[in-house]
Structure formats: C-alpha cells, structure tokens
C-alpha cells in the first residue's frame, strides 16, 4: 500500500503490524504513481491511496501512461468523493473524477455504495491483473447489496423505463421511485459497463440516472447500450461548476436538489 501522506493515522495499526507492506511516500503524486508502476513491473500489486483530486488529477498522465499504456496492474483507492471534504473547498473536491478517468482506456472503475460493498468488490478485483479505481465516499447506502464486480444488480422490475442508481445514490433512487412502474438497476462497476443488464431491464426506452458525480458522466454509456435506438435520458447529478459553499456534504446534497421529494417529482415528470 502506498499512501500519499493521507490516511497515515487511519492505517497506523496495519503499518505497525506489517511495516513492509505500507509506504507513506510523501506529497509527490506524480512520483507516487511512477513509483507504484515500478513496483508493479517487478510483480507486486500496488494499492495507492489519496484524496480523489490528488490521485486523479495531480498525476493523471502517470495513470494514463505508466499504468494504462503500459498495461500494468495497480489499484487506486480514493477518498473524498465529490465534495465529501465540503468545508475544505474546491481544491479538495472532485466530482469530475469519473468523467476524467473514463478517458483512460482499460481502466476499471468501481463506485461502491457502502464499505462492505467495497470490501467485496476489492477482494474480487484486487488480483485481476488490471488497473482499477475505487471511489470511496462518506455518503453511503443504509444497506449493502449482493454486488458482483462488473455486473449491475436488478433490484426492481418495471415497464415504464429504468432508474439507474450508482453507488451511494441507491437509497435515494429506491425511495424516490417506489411508486413508479420502473426498473431499478444498481451499478457499482462503471468500467466495464454492464450494458446487457441495462438492455434487459429496460422495457420502455427511458432511462433516469442518479449520479453522485458530474451529471451526464454516464450518459454516453446509455446511448451506446441502446445504439441506434431513440432513448430518452435524464437524471440527477452534480452540476458542472465549482461549488463555492462550505458546510457539510449533506448541506451540499440538499442544496443541489438531492432530496427525496425533489427527485421523486423530477422522476414523475421524466417518466410521464
């Protein structure tokens, strides 16, 4: 495990028990990823951890080239999804991480909805030989689903379209749509994207996506899933602007209209 001087206190017990397995490398993100690539070249599986903007944006080219282009296996676990670090301001926000990382071919992307789901998904994908990004979030679902890497879970079946819930947006999706005749499809793996499940679940071509990151990030995948057919796509996501407020993440979610009543009403309009 390679830490970018983040989470050091949290991992102190592991560091003590297994000092050879943890490196706090310091605040040098480009070299951190290059270093991890060197480890991977010698047959190790580096697990790199930092706050989302620092692990995605500060060293994006290293992710692209040192791991993507070189086809090495590394596991990149971020914390501070979207605006979890609300009071810290935009330098510590990263609602754009998924949109950016979708640009690296072959990089797997996992957005678990709970800590337990992360454990399952990480265990399953840790040694798969690919590079994978895991997005940890303070916002979590109350319950854990039976998740499988690379597969979406069909949690409800309906005829008027599909609600896609991604990671921590599941609770909101289930409650806001409970009176609607729609399928609810739960994604925790975004790359590879389970288009088959989406096609099977969708009886009418209307898809409403609740994204815990920049709105529209996953829209192209829906378009490709229904390639050539007319599909109505809408949803809820983080607006593409710098969020200038501080406070808490829940205050941000509320301010951005992620309340049950608002989303329910938007879904009713969408599916009508």
């Amino acid at each position, binding site marked *: 495990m390679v830490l970018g001087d983040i989470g050091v206190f949290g991992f102190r017990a592991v560091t003590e028990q297994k000092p*050879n397995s943890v490196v706090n490398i310091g605040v*040098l993100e*480009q070299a951190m990823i*290059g270093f991890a690539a*060197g480890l991977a070249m010698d047959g190790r599986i580096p697990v790199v951890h930092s706050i989302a903007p620092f692990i995605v944006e500060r060293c994006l*080219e*290293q992710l692209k080239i040192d791991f993507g282009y*070189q086809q090495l296996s590394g596991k990149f676990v971020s914390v501070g999804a979207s605006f979890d670090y609300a009071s810290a301001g935009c330098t510590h926000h990263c609602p754009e991480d998924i949109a950016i990382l979708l640009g690296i071919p072959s990089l797997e992307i996992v957005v678990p909805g709970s800590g337990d789901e992360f454990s399952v998904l990480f265990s399953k994908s840790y040694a798969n030989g690919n590079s994978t990004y895991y997005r940890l979030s303070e916002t979590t679902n109350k319950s854990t689903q039976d998740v499988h890497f690379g597969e979406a879970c069909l949690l409800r079946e309906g005829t008027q379209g599909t609600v896609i819930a991604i990671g921590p947006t599941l609770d909101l999706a289930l409650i806001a749509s409970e009176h609607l005749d729609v399928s609810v499809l739960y994604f925790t793996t975004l790359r590879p994207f389970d288009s088959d499940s989406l096609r099977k679940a969708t009886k009418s071509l209307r898809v409403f996506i609740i994204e815990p990151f920049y709105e529209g990030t996953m829209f192209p995948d829906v378009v490709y899933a229904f390639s050539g057919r007319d599909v109505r796509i809408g949803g809820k996501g983080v607006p593409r602007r710098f969020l200038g407020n501080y406070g808490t993440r829940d205050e941000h979610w509320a301010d951005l209209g992620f309340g049950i009543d608002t989303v329910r009403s938007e879904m009713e309009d969408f599916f009508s």
Partner: protein
Amino acid sequence: MSRKLAFDLQLIRKAILEISIESGEGHIPSAFSILEIVSVLYSSILNVEEICKGSTERDRFILSKGHGCLALYFILGEVGLIRRSDLASFCSFDGLLGGHPKRSIVHGIEASTGSLGHGLAIAVGLATSLKRRSSRARVYSLIGDGECNEGSVWEAALLASHNKLTNLMCIVDYNHSGDRALLLGDLGKKFDSFGFTVIDVDGHDINKLEIALSHVDQTNPVAVIAHTIKGRGLKMMENNPAWHHASPNLEQLRDFLTELSGNA
C-alpha cells in the same frame, strides 16, 4: 558479467541516419548524444544475458528520454534483441518500433517513455522492489537535461536518496538542449544537494564512461552527469536545434554519410 561486447558506433550512426530518412522520422541528434552511453551500458555494465532471457534478475535500463530511442533500438539490434526487419520498419503503421519506446515489445525495453519525467520515478519503484527482495539487479535511468525541468524528476530524486537506493543510477545526458528555455547550471551540484553521489564525465569518452557507469556507492544513489553534445558525430547537427526532429534529404544524407566515414 557477460563477455564484453563491442559496437561500431560510426556504423550505428550511419544506420540511424538511413532509417531516419527512410521513415521520415526520428530524433537523430538526441540519439547521437546518448549513443556512447547506451553502448557502454550494453557492452560493459548491464547483465545482458539476463536481459536477453527476460530474467527477473536482469538489470533494468530505462531510457527516460524516450525520443533518443533510435540509439537504444540499434544497440538492442546489435545484441540480437531487435530484428533487422523491425529496425527497417521503424515508425511504419504496422511497425513494431515507434518514435518512442514501448514497454515489453522486446526484452530490453522496460518502460513506455516519451513524455518526459516519468522514467526516474519508475526506476525508483523498481529499485525499491528489487532491494526489498534482496535482488542484485541494478536499475539505470537515462534522463535528459531538458527533462530535468520536470518536477517529477526531482520528486523521484527525493525518494531515491531518502530510501538510500544504492542499486539505482541516474544518468543525465547533459547536452544543454534545455538551455534555451531554462538554464540548469551545475546539475551535479543539484543532484548532490538531493543526496546523490555525483560523477561528472565526458559523455562521449568510452573509457571514462566505463569507469563512471560502473560506480557503486555504499550509501547513496549515484548520478552520472554525462556532458554530451547533441548531434555528436555530424558537424551540421551538433548543437543545432533545427535538427531536433528532422530527417535529412538525400543530398544531406550523402554528405552526412561521407562525414561519418571520414571520422571512422
């Protein structure tokens, strides 16, 4: 160590010119400035037999200034790791070899470089891993002076000395091509301040290179500042930025080949 190899560098310079004109590609002066360095590494320093086998105990050479790759490709050709036909199809659409190295297409190419500043950090990761498993393999990273503008180089340098990576050598091809943007002054002093043991050497003197590149320090990683001339070997190309990424026309090629034959 394997038997000492010998390379005809005039012949290789000619071959680099010829392939460059055939393909219309190649960073000739950069390849020329590092040719002696790469040839000494392969003739006298690296455990080439292990490299040819792809062994986990092979020495690792990372050409971080990837645009100098023609030098590496032709030395690997001499060693038998790259076929003539692949050299001949340099930069062609379906060719194996491109304008920058791609990792693992053949033994001896350890990293996909081309964007400056990546190789030294990768070398640090490799050296760390090798040291942890008590391997005797060593890691060599060849960077350029322009490349030393990149912060990632200095991040890697911090890590190298902090972790006392005595199995790591950073070689700087100091041909001053970066001077027109940023003057770096005494690069040796800079690496020394970052905790490296520094050796300055004439980057075109085979004997002196053999001594410098074989240096191992008991405490620190080593930085060899190889003072070179970009485009070394051809008067018109030496220190002439017009030739950085250009391929000669036929008439120029004739003149260059004549000059190289005369210098043999």
